[in-house]
């Protein structure tokens, strides 16, 4: 039991940090520009594919640096020449633009790398068990993922709180007009944040692509969950996104391992359900099977009871 809890906690942390790498960029973009970037998870996928391709030629380590940089640059281009042009037609146009972009990226990936998954593997140098706890091995690669994601978090935090550009970004989260009236180039900051956000998503793709599976559907799988994180965490709050990432990571990881159903719970209180009745199947659903719907259930409840999210500054 203790082993299960410790390993689930580790996995939750890992999954949560991956989610945070994706959602931190998305929440910054969402709250600064008011654009819910539907293509955000596609940049995560691009990160994984680029890393795969670069590893084939020059290895994993250069890919770890190069892939996020390339994707960040692409993201900046998308903001500068795509979103900024569409911006004058309003938020709906921007939203549609990002939806179109998500499909464009997915189909391009299909075209270039094919519809099935590619063989993007954990580098040999990290393919061993770092240590054994109780009876389970903890792979070195997972430790590595944890180190990367935690250091990314620390760096992001330092940039936002200690540098001048970070302060400008924080200020633009609440009053973009005020920031530009003080003489700061807000469109330039937007481009930087968009590029930076895409680059973080790509980094998550680089270190997550070989841990998960690198396939064209990976964007569509993770995308909705990242939105849940942003909504649950609250508009404009990186801390909120961080808490929500860990919370959803924990929720999903633990749910997968729990094989109890409602009827077991009732049995615990001494109530036995009859095998018949129209609702008979509901009583038998195991918690582990509900894993995929839990985040969305959580989001719906959040929107009903606390629409501005855990730490949101304003209602969206």
């Amino acid at each position: 039991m203790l082993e299960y809890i410790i390993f689930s906690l580790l996995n939750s942390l890992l999954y949560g940090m991956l989610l945070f790498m994706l959602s931190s960029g998305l929440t910054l973009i969402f709250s600064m520009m008011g654009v819910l970037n539907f293509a955000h998870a596609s940049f995560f996928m691009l990160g994984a594919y680029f890393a795969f391709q670069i590893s084939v030629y020059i290895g994993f380590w250069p890919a770890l640096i190069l892939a996020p940089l390339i994707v960040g640059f692409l993201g900046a281009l998308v903001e500068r020449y795509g979103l900024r042009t569409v911006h004058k037609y309003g938020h709906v146009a921007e939203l549609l633009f990002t939806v179109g972009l998500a499909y464009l990226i997915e189909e391009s990936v299909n075209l270039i790398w094919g519809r099935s998954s590619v063989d993007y593997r954990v580098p040999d140098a990290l393919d061993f068990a770092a240590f054994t706890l109780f009876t389970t091995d903890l792979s070195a690669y997972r430790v590595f993922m944890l180190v990367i994601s935690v250091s990314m978090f620390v760096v992001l935090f330092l940039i936002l709180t200690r540098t001048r550009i970070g302060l400008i970004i924080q200020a633009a989260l609440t009053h973009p007009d005020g920031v530009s009236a003080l003489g700061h180039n807000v469109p330039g900051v937007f481009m930087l944040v968009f590029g930076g956000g895409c680059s973080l998503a790509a980094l998550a793709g680089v270190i997550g692509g070989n841990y998960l599976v690198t396939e064209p559907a990976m964007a569509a799988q993770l995308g909705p969950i990242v939105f849940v994180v942003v909504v649950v965490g609250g508009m404009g709050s990186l801390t909120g996104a961080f808490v929500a990432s860990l919370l959803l990571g924990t929720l999903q990881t633990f749910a997968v391992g729990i094989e109890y159903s409602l009827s077991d719970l009732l049995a615990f209180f001494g109530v036995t359900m009859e095998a018949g009745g129209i609702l008979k199947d509901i009583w038998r659903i195991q918690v582990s099977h509900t894993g995929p719907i839990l985040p969305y259930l959580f989001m719906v409840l959040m929107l009903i009871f606390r629409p501005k999210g855990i730490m949101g500054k304003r209602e969206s």
Partner: protein
Amino acid sequence: MLEVKDLHAYYDRSHILQGVDLTVGDGEIVSLLGRNGVGRSTTCKTIMGLVAPMGSIQYKGEEIAGLKPHVIARKGIGFVPEDRWVFPDLTVLQNLQLGSKSRKNSGRWSIEDVFKLFPKLGERSNVHGGLISGGEQQMLTMCRTLMGDPDFIMIDEPTEGLAPKLVKQVGRLIEEIAQRGVSVLLVEQKLSIALKISQRLYIMGHGKIVFEGTPDELKADESIKKEWLEV
């Protein structure tokens, strides 16, 4: 310093500014008065580039209509918005630091100046902007804009909701600003400090200038006051 000619502006389809003409001379304090909703704030935002302009805005002899807000700010125009736009998650000190346009600040105003003028802001320099009182926020917003060392500053309703003692402080700060050679466009709803400190006044009604004159001329003209200012 500033010359606005036949300025029009729209919010969606409503025609807010319908041909505004006004000028502000070097080192002058000029007030723009009028009731709520006549377009005073929109005039400032349009000059600042935050609302798309139609017409001519000349600043130091150069046409600035259509430029981006940060470019306009960098030419030396400052704007203190009515709703203050204090950055709530940044400290008082950080708010002030973002006022200057670059890391180095070599203008007319320093952070020490600000803390000397308003010791309260100095005492609370490490408190988040969202947590200080309304009066302190007003002072902070004005000083933050001054940190950018503007040659011309537009101040939108600085006395709104302030206690009489603070209103006097605002008046003194505006005179101090003018003394340091900065031209001021003061937007007010009430006559309170405007009559005392400005050299000239404009009154707006329905998106146009309906009166232009000195404080003495306005004092003498009861009908104008009744028609365009009294509620």
